[in-house]
């Protein structure tokens, strides 16, 4: 007997990103960095950003850390998605864009895992460039009320 939601949650692409994370590593003397934790699963993610000569383009972005497959795979996907974008584009990036990439419905509790990388990246950019702090990434912000 198989549960389709379960099959979905751990679909191949997520397990692939988890086992072979893209952009995994540390950038020494990074232009921006931040560390994030999700107390639920004990997930930890550190993100390092190097800007291009224009100071606006994300030339390189890497992460290190450990945690559940959802948090690590989503952060891995995020590395691929944000490399080459501008600071402003990433600061304004909506959670739905990352969710579409993850491609499976998440409960509010697991959404927190999935958003850890994006939240941490936005915090790093905020510290370095003063862009807005992440808001509205929490799964409880848009619960359906009966």
């Amino acid at each position, binding site marked *: 007997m198989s549960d389709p939601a379960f099959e979905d949650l751990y679909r191949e692409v997520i397990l692939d990103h988890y086992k072979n994370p893209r952009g995994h590593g540390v950038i020494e003397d990074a232009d921006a960095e931040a560390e994030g*934790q999700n*107390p*639920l699963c004990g997930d*930890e993610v550190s993100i390092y950003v190097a800007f291009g000569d224009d100071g606006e383009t994300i030339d390189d972005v890497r992460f290190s850390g450990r945690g559940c497959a959802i948090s690590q795979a989503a952060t891995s996907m995020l590395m691929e998605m944000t490399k080459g974008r501008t600071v402003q584009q990433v600061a304004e990036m909506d959670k739905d864009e990352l969710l579409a990439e993850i491609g499976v419905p998440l409960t*509010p509790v697991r959404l927190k895992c999935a958003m850890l990388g994006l939240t941490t990246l936005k915090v790093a950019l905020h510290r370095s460039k003063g862009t807005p702090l992440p808001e509205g990434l929490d799964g409880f912000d848009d619960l359906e009320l009966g």
Partner: protein
Amino acid sequence: MAVETVKRLDARALRGDFPIFEEKIKGNPLAYLDSAASSQKPRQVLDRMREAYEHEYANVHRGVYELADRATEAYEGARLKVQRLLNARSRREVVFTRNVTYAMNLIAYAWGLPNLGPGDVAVVTELDHHAVFVPWQYIAGRTGAEFRAIPVDADGELQLDALDEIASAGRVRVVATNYISNTLGTVNPIERLTAWAHEQGAIMVVDAAQAAPHRALDVQALGCDFLGFTSHKMCGPGGAGVLWGREELLAAMEPFETGGEMIRSVKLEGTTWNDLPYKFEAGTPAIVEAVGLGAAVDYLEGIGFDAISEHEHELTAYALERLAELPWVRIFGPPLERRAGIISFEVEGVHPHDVAQILDRHGVAIRAGHHCTQPLMRRLGVAATNRASFYLYSIPEEIDQLVEGLHDVRKVFA
């Protein structure tokens, strides 16, 4: 021609939602005139809590299994309902607490202790419940700050002309008061006090325990900085309360209690705090009680706060009129137009506890005592009062029953 009218409530029909009104008390119908102490509970709230315990129960935030999701969504859903009720900007501003006392202590300790010192002034009022009065008196004492109470006049209304004198005592840093006096029903001028507090550079703290059950609250319109209320006075269960605070103030504050859930990362070298509102929710919260509060919010919004206020206003007018027929009854408090559904009174020559005891024989439940407002009792020159209070399920027959009972009190002590 369309005429805009306030939706009226049908208290007799609503009583059907409250199982207690099906009972006889000492052979009489129940006249429950003590809702200011705690309200009765409708089936809708009880059913929702039973459903939560039977089908949605696990600890919140921690598990990833189905039941933990259901419990977490129910608990966080209740928070969103409170956010909507208060028109708060963000759910991060809504902290679940045990009750108002806890909410007021949280502010006094987590904001007051590090922010007050010699030369500062903490201001309350002579009207205030001990839950507001005592925490600020205590924290002022510990920090060396001045502690002042805005005086009331003989009708129990704030004497705002005393504000200048209070401001001259030092730097006013906090003004804390009841929105509505639990003893006299006085509706305080919160917007005006808030404006004055902010002129002084102070924060404004509002205890809305007697307001939240009866009238629509809009924290953004009120302009205050913190506001607390409790579930059990508004048709919800005991053990759940709310502290609303401005996000920037809450974010800058240290925690009040430490432990599980309120942390982000714990290491031997140090610990960092969780996001709002969880930084202030250490330990397993009262999960199903919060869900019950959410159901109570739904219930009250379904009836409509305008309808509830209007109904209570009419009952208060009727009760003041009926009590005025009794020349041996003295009524305390402000005139009808500035009074919520609370009436404190005394019966000439009879101690309030004896009044309440005799009324109980008639199935009438009122409160007798100092109502946790001893400074106010001293100001009024009494040791205690009787207090009748009304809610959405109160009906005029209960007031008639009270008046009949008072005639009996008079007879017994003649």
